[in-house]
């Protein structure tokens, strides 16, 4: 009898602990979703924001104060986040470059380390990507449950369907060249 009362009490303790953990997980999940949304605050919703034709777009790592003077232009769009890889920067480029002015006077700045060869984007990067790109990166439900996918890396060496082993920096240069866009790498 004592044993059964004890085990009954233990079950409630375990159940209670599980509920508390679940509640904490739900709260943490909500906080992570808010964090991702905040990190993407500079992404323009073109359906209700008519900002276009920027002088410059800065993509990649946050720009160091000593490099800020290299960025010229009155109207600048910043798409930077700590830890953003060169691969994620490429994906931001192909998504956002049309916000740049098209008279030949616009410029894209890619802020990155020359040693960065990482071929993945993080959860905080993929938030604003097109559904086709998200599908290619196998994002799935990750953005709804960031608590389960926070450390996931999205992307592979096989992302590019041409199968060629071209460094991402070179792809960025080629992409901009084909579209007659000026690009400058700021190495940090």
């Amino acid at each position, binding site marked *: 009898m004592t044993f059964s009362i004890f085990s009954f009490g233990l079950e409630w303790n375990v159940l209670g602990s599980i509920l508390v953990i679940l509640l904490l997980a739900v709260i943490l999940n909500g906080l992570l979703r808010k964090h991702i949304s905040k990190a993407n605050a500079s992404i323009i919703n073109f359906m209700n924001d008519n900002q276009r*034709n920027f002088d410059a777009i800065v993509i990649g790592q946050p720009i160091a104060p000593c490099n800020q003077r290299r960025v010229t232009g009155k109207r600048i769009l910043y798409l930077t986040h700590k830890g953003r890889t060169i691969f994620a920067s490429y994906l931001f480029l192909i998504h956002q*470059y*049309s*916000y740049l002015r098209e008279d030949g006077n616009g410029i894209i700045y890619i802020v990155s380390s020359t040693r960065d060869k990482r071929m993945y984007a993080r959860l905080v990067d993929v938030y604003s*990507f*097109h559904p*086709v790109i998200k*599908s*290619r990166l196998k994002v799935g439900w990750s953005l709804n449950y960031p608590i389960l996918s926070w450390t996931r890396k999205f992307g592979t060496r096989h992302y590019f369907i041409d199968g060629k082993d071209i460094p991402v920096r070179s792809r960025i240069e080629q992409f901009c060249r084909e579209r007659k866009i000026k690009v400058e790498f700021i190495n940090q």
Partner: protein
Amino acid sequence: MQIPPIIFGTFQYGSLDELYPMVRSAYENGIAGFDTSPSYNTEEFLGSALSKLCSSAGIQRDRLLIQDKVDGWQMEESKGRIANYVKHSIAKLQSKYIDVLFIHWPFPEYLAETWQAFAELKKAGWVKKIGLSNVRHRHVENLLKETGVMPDVIQIERHPLRICKEDVEYFKKKGFIVEAYSPVCRMDERLVESEVLNKIAHKYNKTIGQVILRWHIDTGVVPVFMTKKESRVAENVNIFDFSLPIEEVEKISSLDINYKIFVESVCCPGI
């Protein structure tokens, strides 16, 4: 069926009950061309509406022009082998063919394969004309180099705030029909408040919307408009009783600020 001078778009309709009165009104006002896309979720509604229209008006299907599209996710999923998607769309439209089929957005991956599939569908009679939407002249040049398949029609976002001069000139020089969606830029306040447009509208006793639609016609472009007001349908077709002289066309064209509603790279990464 030739491309008519003005086409009715079915973007943002939520039901057959909402769409049918507009389709009927469009037809009664002389519009015989209708535009849809899988991403608009209106193919079935349009198919039912046109079927109902044909019955009630006693007309055959070949008196109408239906334009449809292939979307990026379809190109991606099938790696360009889109024929089954198109046949499914034709079934939803309650038709045996599509008059004009567009690649909606030129996603670079599988673009050439999709375009080749378009050529085959045209050859097999499933599609009468093939087109490209949201392209620049460089996309068309590259596709022609890669596949040799010419488009019949090009559809782009075009209005006085974004006249796409170079691209339109290229497309017309090549003999492609050019269509403009968002032809009045959703009556952006910069157009509503334009002195140029207000002056011209006053001169002809027309609305600014009518003047802009006429500007499209007078620059050789077919406007594809969307509205949920029957009165607007009647207004928009009342543009064939006047025309703009070249000076007025140029004044309207000078409003160009390269403003696009649909930011291309966001809608089609890598475009």
